[in-house]
Every structure is written in C-alpha cells, then in structure tokens.
C-alpha cells in the first residue's frame, strides 16, 4: 500500500473511532493518545478498524511504533 492510501485509510479509521476529531487535527506528528485523546478502548477499536479495512494486523508489541498518526501511516504502508 502506498503512503497516500495508507494515510487515507488511517484518517478514515480515526474518523470512525473518534468522529469528533477534525481532519485538520490529523497532523503527522499528532499523538493518538495524548493529542487526539483516544483511550485504550478507542485505540483497540482503531487497531481493529485498521485490520478490517486494510488487512494490517498490528500486534500489541508494535503498539509503541504506531503512537502517532505518521507512525501508524508508515506502519500500515509498510505492512499492507
């Protein structure tokens, strides 16, 4: 999956989990927990939505790598 598709998939997934997050909040450096205020259940749901829409399953051990929007995009692009 290329970077652009991945970014789109990530944006859509975040929008689904946290509908109140505005697209302009989705800067690359935004941290999912601290900046977008996703709690652990939201985050789990995000991982689930990503798996459903892109087929990329993020194991728990890789959670630290996907703590930011860019991190998640890179991960999805690299594994999809």
């Amino acid at each position, binding site marked *: 999956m290329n970077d652009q598709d991945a970014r789109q998939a990530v944006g859509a997934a975040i929008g689904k989990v946290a509908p*109140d997050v505005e697209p302009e909040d989705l800067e690359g450096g935004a941290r999912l*927990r*601290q900046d977008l*205020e996703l*709690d*652990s259940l939201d985050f789990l749901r995000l*991982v689930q939505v990503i798996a459903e829409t892109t087929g990329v399953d993020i*194991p728990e051990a890789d959670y630290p790598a996907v703590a930011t929007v860019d991190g998640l995009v890179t991960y999805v692009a690299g594994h999809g």
Partner: protein
Amino acid sequence: MADFRMPSLGADMEHGKVVEWLVKPGDYVHKGDLVAAVDTDKTVMDIESFQEGVVAEFLVDIGDTVDVGTPIARITATPAELPPSQPQPPAPPLTSGTLSPDARSPLATEAPTPAHLGAEGGHAEPSAKISPPVRHLAHTLGVDVGRISGSGDDGEVTRDDVERAAEASGAGERHVEARATEVPSPPAEARRVRSSPLARRLAAELGVDLSGLAGTGPGGAVTEEDVLSGVPPKKPQTDEAAEAPPSDAHTPEPGVPLEEAPKRQRPTAVGGKAESLRQAIGALMSRSKKEIPHYYLSTTLDLAAAMAWMQAANQQRPVSSRLVPSALLLKATALAAKEVPDMNGFFTKGAFQPSSGVHLGVAVALRHGGLVAPALHDADTLTLDELMDQLRDLVGRARAGRLQRAEMADPTITVTNLGDLGVESVYGVIYPPQVAMVGFGKVLEQPWAHNGMLGIRHAATATLSADHRVSDGLRGGRFLARIDELLQAPENL
C-alpha cells in the same frame, strides 16, 4: 392504574426530556420492557417499565422536558386487577380496526401521537365490537370488554352491557362512590374531555378534574391555562406529590414542590449539552463534597504478572478479542468489592445499605467534555472476556449517548481509569449515594525493588476515595491490598 413517572436516572438528575416513545398506547408492557428514550443532561437513555399492564396514554409529548417524578404515561393494570380509580383524565380508547373512521377521528386528534397509533390497529386489544365512548366507559369502570357478550347490533357491546358487568363485579359501585366523595358534581359516567397532553399531565399533578373545566382551546379543548386557572387556591395534594418517583432506594428526594409545577417547561439544555452536563456534574460533586466525609488512600499495584499474562494472551487473540489492562483492573476491583462489602452499596437515609451485587460504575470521558459512569452489572461474576465485551459496548454506547436507565442509576461502586490517558494517580470524588470511588493511574514501567534486587516492572497507582461514615482507612486499605493480591493471579480473574 399507575402513572409511569419520569424516573431518576442518577442521583444528580432533576429532569428529563422524552425524545422517543418505544411503545404506543395499547401496547402490553411487562416489567422491564423499554418504554421511552429519555434525554437527560448527560445522555439519552432507554427507560423501562416498573409495572406490567397496558399503555393507556402518554401524558407528555415528544420533546417535553419534565421533572423527575412527573407522570409521563399511564399504564393500566390488566382490567381485572383494576382498583377503583378516581376520575382520570381520559385515556384514549385503544383504537382497533373495527372502529369506523368517523368514530375515530375526534379521538385521533386527542391521541398524543397519532402517528404511532395509525395503521397499527393490529396491536390493539382483541376487538369486541364496541364504540369508543363505551370502550372508554369500560376502561374507566375497570371492565374487561373482552369478557362481555354484547347485546347490541352484531353483538356490539353497549353502554348497558358495560354497566351491568361493572355492577356484577362491584367495581362500578365502588367507582361511583369514590367519585362521589371526591368530586362535587360527578357526571354519571366518565365524560371525555378534550385536552392537550400537557393539560392532562398538569391536571394529574395538580389534582384538577378536567371534566370540571370549561375548555378555551380549539374545539373547547382544555388547555394548560385552563388547568392552572382551575387549581384550587389551597391544594390538599402534597401527599400525592410526595409519593412521586419510582421505588429505587437511592432516588433523590422525591417531593417536587407543587409551586414549581408551572415552571416545569424549563428550557431544554440551556446552552447546549456540554454545559448542562457540566452543571449536572458540578451539582453532584458539590453535594458529594458537602455530604460525604471522604478519606483517601493510595497504593502501588504490582502489575508485572498481570501485564505479562495479558500480553501473552493477546498474542493468541485476534484484535477483536484482545484485552486492555482496564479489564483486569476492573475485574479485580469487582471481586475485591464483593469481599469488602463496606465499599459496595448506597448510603441513603442516614444508613449504609450494602449491595449484594457488584455493579461497577465505569467513568467514561465523553469526547465533547464531561463524563458519565454507567454500570457493568454483576461485574464480579463476569469472565474477563465477558467483561471486556461489555466494557466495549458500554463505552461505545456512553459515547454515542445511548445508555439504559439501569446502567446509569445503579452502580454500587465506581472506578475512574483516568490513567489511561496519562496521569499517574487520580483521587476521585464519590458519586452519591455510593460510598467508594477507585482510581487507577497510568500503567508504567517502574523501577521495582524485589528480593534485594532492583528490576523493572509494570505498575500503576491505585487510589481509593471512601466514605468515612461507612468505613475507616484500615478497611479501605484492605480493599486496595486485595485488588493488588487478585492481580497477582491474573489467570484466575
């Protein structure tokens, strides 16, 4: 005949807005069936019936905001069980397919939600042939028309039939007596009075007999103003107001002073949901801090075993059934609360009532600000997977604003898990009438001395805010220590 009243959906709830009826007049409801969706300052909740019977009529319109304890619908017991009733505002007769269009039309204008009634005649009670006024008379007299064989044309049930049946059962007599003592000039039979739902509700609350009023509304309908002008200067009705809300032991002070009645059309959600929620939280927390002598304890939980177990378990699982640390913390809290009953229950009327079930309130931060703390019922009996599923469901619905009454009203102890978003420790404010609040901080890797060695372990700070009227620090400390112990054997949670 029973009024279905706006229930209290939490100690801080003062009023609610009916946003949807989940039943319609004529429906048979069992105890526990969902009746309406109610918007509180916090969220939209589905509320259930506390009694069994037939929905006779709605007393409020969609969109009306009313105080807790206000009758919002009438639910009639099955006719045979009907006690002699005092004159009630007219219940819309159960419409059925046998009614001719012109017989229905005047009624349809009175039915609060004709849309719900229309075309659904199939749900009405089995249709003995009967005209609406006679049906209403039967209803008022507590006569089951289904058991009368009609003597009119085509077996139609007539007024005489109904009156005979009522006399036979004695219900009619008692009914007339009851009326005679209470109403100065009782009409011989219940007279239908055109009136708006609001007027009927006010009348029911204020003890005004609608049939004694001259209506000034369209078609002579009795309006809200007519009802208010018909209020006797001195109302002997306080006892009725005082018996207001449903029977939950922990509902807030029931009596809605009558003087406030006209005010009840309060503007809904002043300044938006977030602000009214903020006000509700502020009021409740002020009350808590004023009434509850809090004491606070804190301990550090060793989560090495719990996190190792969870991570190993999650590796075997698809993402849809993975666990989060909160699930383990919640389960351990529920088990500990079961063992230390002084933490689990309600303090009402000057005494503590421990609860046999552990209904674990989970504080859920809402995205637009504020929080709600709905309950995971019998959390101590759930497996971790069940608890996790319910937690996802509950949090999802809390955020979407769709909780059920029981979930909001009956947590017996609450957990706040603010650590999930980063803080190391959180000292909660107890939700009255509960007596304890547990707070979990962030799960962190920390240096940990063990057996003379320094290592790194996952740990989190657990805090307890508890009610000194019920327990002391020693007991509270035991409760926190028990949570820690339970987390050392996560496979048994």
